């Protein structure tokens, strides 16, 4: 899902930078208005986990692999806005030090993974609908993380499809369905991992993870 430099036209890179910077600014304002210092260790450790998890590709089908993105995971742990900032840190480090995702394409990568992932919080919230049931929670996270993966792939398919390198090969008519196809499958990996981990964490006594805000309070 990490778009390398060279895949996107300069125009699309700039448009995605502007959109993502807008969301980041908004997330920053929202986060600082409700931030408590007790969240810092959870934010740092969960971001580090997402970085590590993104390194481990699992095989899907016909010689294609995928990895956890973790946007929904972070959004349920940290809330949508802090999750967007947290995932952005991961994407920055990957682009700066690991040549995973480009510098010019950074705006697009932040949009596809951090912003869509962070906003999936609202879908989890709508689907759990104040229910305290663990199975309802598992289902809500499963569906939301799957959708966030597919939407990210859809956005990526549009971005590359409108860029010259891929428009020569058929454009969005080809890139969107193929990106969505692979990520419908990869999304099941994302969904199983995210729903299992979060349901296990939710079961832990509240003293273990004291800053587990959004999850404990019925996703307020």
């Amino acid at each position, binding site marked *: 899902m990490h778009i*390398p430099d060279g895949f996107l036209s300069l125009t699309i890179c700039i448009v995605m930078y502007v959109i993502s910077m807008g969301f980041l600014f908004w997330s920053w304002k929202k986060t600082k208005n409700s931030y408590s210092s007790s969240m810092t260790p959870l934010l740092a450790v969960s971001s580090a986990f997402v970085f590590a998890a993104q390194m481990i590709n699992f095989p899907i089908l016909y010689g*294609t692999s995928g*990895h956890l993105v973790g946007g929904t995971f972070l959004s349920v742990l940290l809330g949508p806005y802090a999750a967007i900032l947290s995932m952005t840190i991961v994407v920055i480090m990957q682009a700066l030090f690991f040549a995973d995702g480009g510098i010019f394409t950074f705006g697009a990568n932040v949009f596809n993974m951090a912003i869509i992932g962070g906003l999936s919080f609202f879908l989890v919230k709508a689907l759990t609908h104040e229910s305290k049931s663990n199975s309802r929670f598992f289902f809500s996270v499963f569906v939301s993380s799957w959708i966030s993966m597919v939407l990210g792939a859809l956005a990526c398919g549009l971005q590359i499809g409108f860029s010259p390198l891929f428009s020569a090969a058929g454009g969005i008519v080809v890139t969107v369905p193929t990106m969505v196809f692979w990520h419908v499958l990869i999304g099941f990996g994302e969904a199983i991992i995210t729903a299992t981990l979060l349901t296990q964490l939710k079961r832990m006594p509240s003293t273990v993870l004291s800053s587990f805000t959004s999850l404990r309070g019925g996703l307020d």
Partner: protein
Amino acid sequence: MNNYVKALVIVIVCMAILIPFASSDPDGLERVAEDLGVEETESQSGGLMPDYTVPTVKNDYGSTLIAGVIGVFLVLGAGLVLGKTLTKYEH
């Protein structure tokens, strides 16, 4: 031991165990690019640890593990700095 430190240790241990099993097949986007005959140009920045390897370490597993552990601490550090910065605005 602090629960967060425990969690961090678990993350690193799991990473060390799972790295050999990680698939080296192309991911979804790389696969789409390959199928369409789009070549990935060498990244301008390159990065110090391209594709999660430390170029000076010859052993594949060691190279990826070291890159991974460095990455985990880079992200952890950045997360702590972000948290610290946000705390300045705490009410």
